C-alpha cells in the first residue's frame, strides 16, 4: 500500500520567538516552511480586557507542576503575545556561570560580546524601544524613587513596545488589543507568511520519528485539537529539518515521547530546567510616605494608588548584577504589575495563614497601593520532567489551569540568592516607612512561580550536561534544532525574551546549512522582516554565518 504524506523543507513546532524567527529566515531563503502551533490564531480584537474564566484563558494558562507553576501563552505568537515585552541583554557574567557542577554551563563560543551582534539584530527587528522617564508608569516611578532614596540606581526598562500606540491600559498579560506590543504576530510571523510559510493553529505536535520519504529526515506526528482540548484528527508531515520551539515546557516533552521512535535522547532532555530564578514579592506602599518621603504626587489629592496603571514593566535596579559577587548571589530587581489573577499568592504577613484570611482581606482593600517586584536570580537548574502524558504536554485541570510533570525543589544555592534579593528589596522599601513589611509570594499554593521557563533541553559543550550542541542542534540527531527557552543554558538574571530571540537568530545559519545538506534550496539572508539591511554586512561576517555559507 502506498500512502502519501505532506512534505516540507522545514517544519517548525511553535510560533513564539524560537519558532517565528527561524520560520521567517527559512522562508526568506526560499524554503517550504510549515509552522504547527498548538493554540489558536488571534489578532488585536481577540485580546480581551476581561477576567471572566473562559475568555483570556483561551490563550493563557498557569501550568502547575510539582513545586512550581509557570504562566504561559498558548496561541500563535506564543509567549511574545502575553509577556510584558521587557527586552534586555543578559549581563556578561551570566555566560561564564559554572553552576553547582563547577563546569562552564554555556558553550565556550557564546559570550556577551559574541552574542551582542545577534542582540543588535533582535533589537532592530522587534524593534525594542528605550522607555524614557515620561513612559514609565507611576508604579515604576515609585520603585525608582525608592531605590534612589536608598542610595541605589534604577533604570527604565527597554521594551518591545510601540510607545506611540500604547494606551497604558494595564492589561498586557491578556495580549495587546492596540497592536502596541511588538509580539511575533506583528513582525516575524506576517513576514514569514508573506513569503509563503504556512501557520497551522490548533495543531499539537506529539512526537518525531524517522521519515519514510527518501531525502527527508523526520516525520512529525501531530493532532489537530478542538478548543476544549479533545482531538479532532491526527496526521503527519515529513521534513528535512525540524525546529522545536514549543516552549521550555513543551519541547522536552515532545522529545521524551519521541525516544520510542527515534531512539535514546540525550541525557539532558527534560533535565536542568531553570525557573530563571524568578522570585516575586508584593507589598502595600504607604500613600502618605509616597508624598512626604518620595515627594511624588499624581495630582493634588493622590500620591500613588496606581498599581494597575501603565505598562506592566517600568523600572528595575541593576545594582545586584555585580560581577564581583559570588555566583548565586547576583540578581536584578524589577517592578512589574500582575493582574488580580495573582492576588491569591500575595502574603499579608510572613506567618500563617499569610496568603488568605482576615489580614489578607484587609490588604486587598489597599490593592491600588500595591507594588510588585520580581527578583531574577541565579538558580541551580534544579528542575526536571517526569514521564510525558499520553498526548500533548499537559493535562487540563480547569479553565486557566493545567498540570504537567515538571518538578522543582529549590536548592540551598537558589534559596540563598532569593534571600539576598529579599533582604535588599526590604531595605529599599521599608526605608522612610514607605512599606511596613515586604513579603515574597507564598509557595503553599502553586510552589515557585515563574514566567520564564528555561533550560529543559539546553545548549552546551559538555555532552552530559547539555542536550544541544553550540549551534542548537540536538546531540545525535542531525537536523533537529531547539531554539526556544529550552535551549538557554542557565537563568539570565533578566527577562529572557531578547536572549531567546538572539540565540534563535544565531541558530538560523546552522539550520539552513542542514536543510541544504538534505537537498533543500535555501540560502541565508540577513534581511529583517521589514526589509531593513542595516545590520546585513555585520551579520554576514559573523562566524556562525561564515561556517554555514562557506
Amino acid at each position: 500500500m502506498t500512502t502519501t504524506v505532506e512534505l516540507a523543507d522545514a517544519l517548525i513546532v511553535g510560533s513564539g520567538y524560537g519558532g517565528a524567527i527561524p520560520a521567517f529566515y527559512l522562508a526568506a531563503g526560499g524554503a517550504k516552511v510549515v509552522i504547527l502551533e498548538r493554540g489558536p490564531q488571534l489578532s488585536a480584537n481577540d485580546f480581551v480586557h476581561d477576567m471572566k474564566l473562559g475568555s483570556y484563558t483561551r490563550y493563557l494558562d498557569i501550568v502547575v507542576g510539582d513545586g512550581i507553576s509557570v504562566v504561559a501563552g498558548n496561541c500563535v505568537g506564543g509567549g511574545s503575545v502575553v509577556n510584558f515585552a521587557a527586552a534586555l541583554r543578559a549581563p556578561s557574567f551570566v555566560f561564564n556561570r559554572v553552576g553547582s557542577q563547577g563546569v562552564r554551563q554555556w558553550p565556550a563560543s557564546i559570550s556577551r560580546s559574541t552574542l551582542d551582534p545577534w542582540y543588535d539584530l533582535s533589537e532592530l527587528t522587534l524593534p525594542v524601544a528605550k522607555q524614557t522617564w515620561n513612559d514609565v508608569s507611576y508604579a515604576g516611578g515609585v520603585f525608582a524613587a525608592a531605590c534612589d532614596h536608598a542610595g541605589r540606581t534604577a533604570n527604565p526598562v527597554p521594551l518591545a513596545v510601540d510607545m506611540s500606540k500604547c494606551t497604558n491600559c494595564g492589561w498586557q498579560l491578556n495580549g495587546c488589543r492596540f497592536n502596541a506590543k511588538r509580539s511575533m504576530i506583528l513582525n516575524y510571523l506576517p513576514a514569514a507568511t508573506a513569503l509563503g510559510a504556512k501557520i497551522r493553529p490548533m495543531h499539537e505536535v506529539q512526537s518525531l520519528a524517522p521519515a519514510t520519504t527518501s531525502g527527508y529526515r523526520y516525520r512529525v506526528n501531530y493532532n489537530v485539537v478542538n478548543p476544549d482540548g479533545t482531538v479532532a484528527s491526527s496526521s503527519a508531515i515529513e521534513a528535512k529539518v525540524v525546529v522545536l520551539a514549543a516552549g521550555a515546557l513543551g519541547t522536552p516533552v515532545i522529545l521524551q515521547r519521541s525516544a520510542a521512535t527515534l531512539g535514546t535522547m540525550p541525557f539532558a532532555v527534560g533535565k536542568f530546567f531553570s525557573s530563571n530564578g524568578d522570585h516575586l514579592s508584593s507589598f502595600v506602599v504607604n500613600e502618605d510616605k509616597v508624598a512626604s518621603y518620595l515627594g511624588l504626587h499624581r495630582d493634588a489629592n493622590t500620591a500613588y494608588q496606581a498599581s494597575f496603571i501603565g505598562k506592566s514593566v517600568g523600572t528595575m535596579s541593576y545594582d545586584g548584577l555585580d560581577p564581583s559577587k559570588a555566583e548565586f548571589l547576583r540578581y536584578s530587581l524589577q517592578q512589574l504589575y500582575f493582574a488580580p489573577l495573582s492576588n491569591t499568592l500575595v502574603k499579608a504577613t510572613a506567618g500563617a495563614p499569610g496568603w488568605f484570611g482576615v489580614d489578607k482581606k484587609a490588604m486587598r482593600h489597599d490593592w491600588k497601593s500595591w507594588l510588585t517586584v520580581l527578583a531574577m536570580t541565579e538558580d541551580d537548574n534544579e528542575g526536571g520532567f517526569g514521564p510525558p502524558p499520553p498526548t500533548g504536554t499537559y493535562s487540563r485541570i480547569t479553565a486557566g489551569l493545567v498540570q504537567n510533570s515538571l518538578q522543582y525543589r529549590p536548592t540551598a544555592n537558589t534559596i540563598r540568592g532569593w534571600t539576598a534579593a529579599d533582604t535588599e528589596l526590604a531595605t529599599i522599601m521599608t526605608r522612610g516607612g514607605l512599606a511596613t513589611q515586604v513579603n515574597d509570594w507564598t509557595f503553599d499554593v502553586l510552589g515557585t512561580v515563574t514566567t520564564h521557563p528555561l533550560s529543559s533541553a539546553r545548549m552546551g559543550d559538555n555532552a552530559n550536561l547539555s542536550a544541544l550542541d553550540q549551534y542548537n542542534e540536538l546531540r545525535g540527531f542531525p537536523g533537529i534544532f531547539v531554539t526556544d527557552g529550552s535551549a538557554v543554558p542557565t537563568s539570565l538574571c533578566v527577562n529572557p525574551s531578547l536572549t531567546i530571540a538572539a540565540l534563535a537568530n544565531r541558530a538560523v545559519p546552522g539550520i539552513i546549512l542542514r536543510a541544504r545538506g538534505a537537498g533543500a534550496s535555501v540560502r541565508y539572508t540577513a534581511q529583517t522582516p521589514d526589509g531593513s539591511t542595516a545590520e546585513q554586512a555585520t551579520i554576514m561576517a559573523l562566524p556562525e554565518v561564515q561556517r554555514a555559507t562557506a
Partner: protein
Amino acid sequence: MGSFVHGGLSRRRAVQAGIIATGGAVGLGIVLPIADAATTTAPGTIAPAALDQATTLTLEAYADTVVPGEKRTPDDITIAGVAPGPSAVVAGALDVLQMPEVGLATSLPGLAMLLNGQAAGYAAQAGLALDPNLPPFVALPFPHRVALTVSLTTPGRPDHPYWVLLATLISWAFDTGGAQHTTEALSTGHAGLAWIGFPAPNADGIWRFPQFSYRRQLAKPSPRTTRSGSPA
C-alpha cells in the same frame, strides 16, 4: 503540589478521576461520587445541577475562610463575620466553582464531604464538640477553620491540590469576578472588585489611562548600563 490528574483519560475526566483516586489513597474512607461520562461535559454545554444544602454550606464556609467578610443576616451560619466588607461568598465564589468552564461542579459534593471528614477529625483531635446539625466544617469556630485550612494547604499532603485549587478559584471569584465579564461585574457592583477598587473602563468598555506617569527622572541609571539600556 501533588498530582491533580492521572494518565489514560480525557483531560477533564482525568480531573474527576484524580480526585477520586487520591481521596481513596488518603484512606479517609470517604466515597467520592464518580462523575458520570454523560454529566462530564465540555465547557459551555450543560449547566450543572444545583448543589445539595450540605455542600453549599460547606463550600460557603470554606470560601469565607479564604476571603472572610460580613454576615448577610444575623443568623448566617457559613459566614463567620470576622472581617469588614464582603466575603468571597457574596463575591460569587460558588458561581465560579460551578462554572461549566471550570468543570468541577460534579466533584464539589465529594470535595465538601472530604473537607467535612477532615473537619470532624480535626475537631476530635482538638477536643471540640461540634453542632451535630451542621456539616462539621461549618460547625468549626472561625479560628479553627483557619487552622485546619492552614494544615490542608501546606504542601506535601496528598490532598493538598484540592484545597489550593478550591482556594484559588475562590480567590479568583473575589479578585477577578471570574464568573462574569469584567465590564458586567463592575456595572453590577461586584463585591470583590469594588473592595479592591478595580477601576472602571472607558465608555466603550476598554481601559486606557492617558495619565500614567510622574514624567520625571526619579533615579540615576546604573553605571553598568550599555547603549540599548541593558546591563553590561
